[in-house]
């Protein structure tokens, strides 16, 4: 269609020597990124930043290398190279950008100055976005299978871990925020994971049987789904807040409740609120999944003389599994994000840094909370999407 219309048909030019429409967009974005400040230098943590352009942010030899690599990426985006070449060059440019950002921080920080802060500027973020777009486009075109996608995710995660472990980013502001609160960071990370995964686990244990019940008994279905629909409309901070009072009452009046960690403020109301939000997608996807099992499969199972229970566990649930897993994917990604709000009621998690940072107008502290949250949510989405695809092969999933 359009690809055929725009591709050269009569000349003998090589296939790659033609403009790529998405490449034009990426090239425009990256040109804007190259013109904007690459890094921000601040004499201390909260004063206004002093922008440093691409040419001023690094010593001359490094600048030359960075500009050369950016030009290479520019060409790779603009021309019709194969997706594999685009992917390789896209990853190369991103790696160089990230490594040089760390070097730029070391270069711009005066020796022995512990107050100075260097953070990535708008130019860095836009360049990173442009080449992430190049990588995303190439990955979409290559249509990798689920295992390959998980492998790429782990490779990227390992590369980032190596970058952080090597210490080349230690002069960047976000890592200075980290180094002064490393213990708290891992503590909140554990709380965040416990909140997100714990609430989803409880939602699965409660939601799947509830979904089966809704599927079997029509009268229950409308009541349960409507109630859960209304729960979803309550804004998350309000739901977190509303659970404080009943849980405080339980802690005060039910023997042993406070001993197992139930209290008005803190992790307990956050966990209950996240659980309440997760229930609707799990229950409704279980119902939809079971409803979409083909009648032929159920008839065949009946014909073989399977009992209701055998049909449920042997036929219906396995066939409905990919749809149920899609529901779990939705709530896991959602709860990783929502768990940040738990910090408002003393529930901990990465939100602690986000809200502290907003309070102190220290944006690097906001990033220290926001970046791991986004990364976790993204990783969870990639892994679960891959799992859904693996389980639905040969199944009946949409």
């Amino acid at each position, binding site marked *: 269609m359009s690809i055929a219309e725009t591709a050269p048909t009569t000349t003998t030019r090589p296939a790659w020597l033609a403009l790529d429409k998405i490449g034009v967009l990426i090239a425009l974005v990256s040109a804007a990124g190259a013109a904007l400040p690459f890094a921000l230098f601040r004499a201390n943590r909260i004063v206004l930043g002093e922008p440093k352009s691409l040419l001023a942010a690094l010593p001359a030899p490094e600048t030359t290398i960075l500009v050369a690599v950016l030009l290479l990426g520019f060409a790779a985006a603009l021309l019709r190279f194969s997706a594999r070449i685009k992917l390789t060059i896209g990853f190369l440019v991103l790696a160089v950008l990230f490594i040089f950002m760390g070097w730029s921080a070391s270069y711009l920080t005066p020796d022995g100055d512990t107050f100075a802060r260097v953070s990535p500027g708008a130019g860095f973020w836009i360049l990173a976005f442009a080449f992430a777009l190049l990588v995303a486009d190439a990955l979409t075109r290559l249509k990798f299978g689920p295992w390959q996608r998980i492998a790429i995710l782990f490779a990227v995660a390992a590369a980032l871990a190596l970058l952080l472990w090597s210490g080349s980013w230690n002069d960047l502001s976000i890592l200075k925020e980290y180094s002064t609160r490393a213990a708290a960071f891992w503590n909140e990370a554990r709380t965040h994971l416990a909140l997100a995964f714990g609430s989803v686990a409880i939602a699965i244990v409660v939601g799947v049987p509830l979904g089966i019940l809704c599927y079997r008994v029509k009268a229950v279905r409308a009541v349960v789904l409507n109630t859960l629909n209304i729960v979803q*409309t309550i804004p998350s901070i309000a739901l977190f807040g509303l659970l404080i009072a009943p849980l405080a009452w339980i802690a005060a009046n039910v023997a042993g409740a406070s001993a197992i960690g139930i209290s008005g403020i803190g992790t307990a109301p956050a966990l209950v609120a996240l659980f309440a939000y997760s229930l609707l997608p799990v229950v409704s996807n279980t119902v939809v999944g079971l409803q979409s099992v083909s009648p032929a499969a159920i008839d065949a199972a009946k014909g073989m003389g399977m009992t209701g229970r055998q049909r449920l566990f042997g036929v219906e649930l396995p066939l409905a599994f990919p749809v149920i897993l899609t529901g779990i994917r939705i709530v896991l990604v959602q709860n990783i994000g929502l768990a940040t709000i738990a910090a408002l009621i003393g529930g901990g998690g990465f939100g602690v840094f986000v809200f502290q*940072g907003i309070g102190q107008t220290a944006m690097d502290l906001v990033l220290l909370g926001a970046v791991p949250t986004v990364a976790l949510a993204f990783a969870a989405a990639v892994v679960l999407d891959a799992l859904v695809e693996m389980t639905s092969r040969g199944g009946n999933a949409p």
Partner: protein
Amino acid sequence: MKIGLVVRLIVLLLLLAFLVSPQSFAGFFTLLTKNNQPPIYNQGSLLDLTLNHLAIVGIATLAATIIAVGLAILVTRPFGAEFLPLSRSLANIGQTFPPVAVLALAVPMLGFGTAPTLVALFLYGLLPIFENTLTGLSNLPSAVTDAAKGVGMTGWQRLLKVELPLALPVILAGIRLSVVISLATATIGSTVAARTLGEVIIAGLLSGNTAFVLQGGLIVGALAVLIYDALSALERFLMARTGQAGRAAA
């Protein structure tokens, strides 16, 4: 259905009564306070906050609708076909960004107040509308689009007279999703000093006043349920009008 309508009307009337004259409900909310806390939010008018909340959500959704529908039309035309797979995966990736993170990251660029909230709601609202418009425009019954081509309609005529009207219910479903998410997310905007109903909830959290938390939450919840139902009814009406009663909304 009749009972449902009556319940919704009662909810709407209660909501309006509460917004116009919150003090007449003080008796109920006093039950939730302790140590003589004020039962009704006293740092501003609830009606003003509600209108401001709705205005922020309305502006963000309107902007998101224009951009998202425009982009979806662009990538479903032959000219933009190359962008289709990428825009699909970007919409997918974008939805993994938590609203709090979007909000917090908009602050350094825009400062505190309404602006970062508007931007966060706009960006977050784009995705459901874009995805649904895409679904609506690319899942049209081929008999209809072929017929439109057959009678000699140009690309523009097909888009405006056939494709968009047929896709409208699905697009509306996306807008509905986006509005409900935005109504709840706007409350978080109050953590960066936007004047929304979140102010009431946060004031309640800070002073340990459950009455504040409950009234803020109830107003937002009631608004969300009513708007959700009104838009669903509009979708059903449009479905019936375009003779697609059998097609399920995405």
